[in-house]
């Protein structure tokens, strides 16, 4: 268009006044927030010292956010231990949730009512009661089931006999409670993935002679993953934070560690910030992992896979640079006639 010689006119782009104004307001607001984060205020206490026989007192000042305390505890062993517990609990609960959830989803889609009704009831029950209640319930379950006996109902046959009080430590109770609750949500996520796969895929698999199990494992699930992964990433991140409920049954996970510390030194806000920063860091790492997982399971679904964040950043930068370098877009005079 513009390549046919000097016969060109200048194109005047539209000016987006509203956008510029909105942007300016947002920048001011961000600046105000940023200022409070790095500002210092009087702590309300005075510090006095005697220099050369003269006693001088002046008000103490410190970061509004007490960054010195935040970073003092940021890598303290108590907080780090809590962080490890939080991550262990997240992994375990999600593992229970995903495995059981997929199983329930498959049962739910079974043509047999004998399998689909229990699956439906499970989801109904565990979604219908608060997760916090379930957590307390599992922690106290030894009150109604002091021992766990696995055998045939009404028959004198037992395979396994366990003592619930020793079995259900705060950690196992939390893992079971959060995992079972998660399974209800994961089953719906898995089910939506499974039904999103075109029926023709199953027919093609069957026509090759694959069994139901093979077609599920080799054809349907890998394609359902594309739908399942994004909300599952959401669930993992949500679980990471839900584990903080376990501090209420005496598990010293990340929040528990922070509360223990501020119970002793009353530095409530700085320790909450310490914990929050760690939650943010882990969430960020998880989001990056999710991106690559989505890319992997999306293979074949799109003609051109989306760029990696790095590639996108590079192309964004190139775009910005070229805005300043290349002349304004222009069209040939032909277009005006």
């Amino acid at each position, binding site marked *: 268009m513009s390549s046919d010689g000097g016969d060109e006119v200048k194109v005047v782009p539209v000016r987006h006044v509203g956008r510029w104004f909105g942007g300016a307001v947002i920048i001011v607001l961000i600046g105000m927030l940023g200022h409070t984060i790095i500002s210092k205020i009087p702590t309300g206490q005075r510090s006095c010292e005697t220099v050369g026989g003269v006693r001088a007192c002046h008000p103490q000042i410190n970061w509004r956010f007490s960054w010195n305390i935040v970073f003092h505890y940021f890598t303290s062993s108590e907080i780090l231990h809590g962080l490890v517990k939080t991550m262990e609990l997240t992994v375990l609960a999600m593992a229970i949730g995903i495995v059981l959830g997929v199983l329930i989803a498959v049962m739910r889609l079974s043509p047999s009512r004998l399998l689909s009704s229990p699956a439906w009831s499970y989801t109904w029950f565990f979604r219908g009661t608060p997760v916090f209640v379930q957590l307390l319930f599992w922690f106290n379950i030894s009150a109604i089931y002091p021992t766990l006996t696995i055998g045939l109902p009404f028959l004198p046959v037992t395979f396994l006999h366990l003592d619930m009080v020793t079995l259900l430590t705060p950690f196992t109770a939390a893992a079971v409670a959060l995992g079972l609750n998660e399974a209800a949500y994961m089953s719906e996520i898995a089910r939506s993935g499974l039904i999103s796969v*075109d029926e*023709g*895929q199953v*027919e*093609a*698999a*069957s*026509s*090759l*002679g*694959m*069994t*139901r199990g*093979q077609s599920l494992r*080799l*054809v349907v699930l*890998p*394609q359902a993953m594309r739908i399942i992964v994004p909300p599952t990433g959401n669930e993992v991140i949500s679980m990471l934070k839900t584990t903080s409920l376990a501090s209420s049954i005496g598990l010293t996970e990340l929040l528990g560690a922070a509360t223990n510390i501020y119970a002793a030194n009353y530095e409530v806000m700085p320790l909450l910030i310490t914990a929050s920063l760690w939650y943010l860091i882990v969430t960020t790492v998880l989001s990056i992992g999710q991106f690559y997982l989505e890319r992997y*399971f999306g*293979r*074949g*679904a*799109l*003609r051109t896979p989306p760029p990696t964040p790095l590639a996108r950043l590079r192309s964004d930068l190139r775009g910005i640079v070229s805005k300043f370098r290349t002349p304004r877009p222009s069209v040939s005079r032909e277009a005006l006639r």
Partner: protein
Amino acid sequence: MTSAMVEARGVCKHYAGVEVLRGVNLTVNRSEVTCLIGPSGSGKSTLLRCINHLEKHDAGDLRVDGQLVGYEARDGKLYERSDKQICIERSQIGMVFQRFNLFQHLTVLENVTIGQVKVKKVAADAATKRARELLARVGLDAKEGFYPSQLSGGQQQRVAIARALAMDPKLMLFDEPTSALDPELVGEVLDVMKDLASSGMTMIVVTHEMGFAREVADTVYFLDSGVIEESGDPRQVLSSPRSERLKSFLSKVL
């Protein structure tokens, strides 16, 4: 065995109140190409799906390769076949669909090897070798690393044919294999099918391509509202139809 490859006697099938097949009689001889034509909703797909155990017919006698479909006759009784037996039966019948149904998450090569490896338990390298031969036969050896979404419709359908052939089927079923294709892509798929027919494959083809039926088919069946209205040599059936319904159908498709 000297019996026909497919033998249907009074096959019936209904879905919740709708009679889809109402006593279909049809014979498909070995190494012959049979074309099935008929208006939309007449039950052509349903018949193919019954032959491939994707649906259960509810009355009549349907045999593939001399064996009853879905049942086994032993000691004067009919035993329903287990899921496992049905899978084995299906693996010997190739099927090509109107909408290709290639496995979207697998490359072209993987699409053609998966059945061999997972169902026929062929070793991976032997399966790959066979897959490459078949892809060369349908003219797609250069595309083996592509995903189905990166291929044209005609190319996808040719991969689907290669995928079915990789199972070494004794019978190939085609359900409107060219109906979802742009007119200029129909030819490449029909060419592959003609090549397959001349190699002696037994084929049942549901199609609206009357030219193909005339040229390749040994027998044409006209299915209308669940019964075979007319059948016979394609030149005779298609050129001088006897029934009014076939006449009006042909006037619409041609």
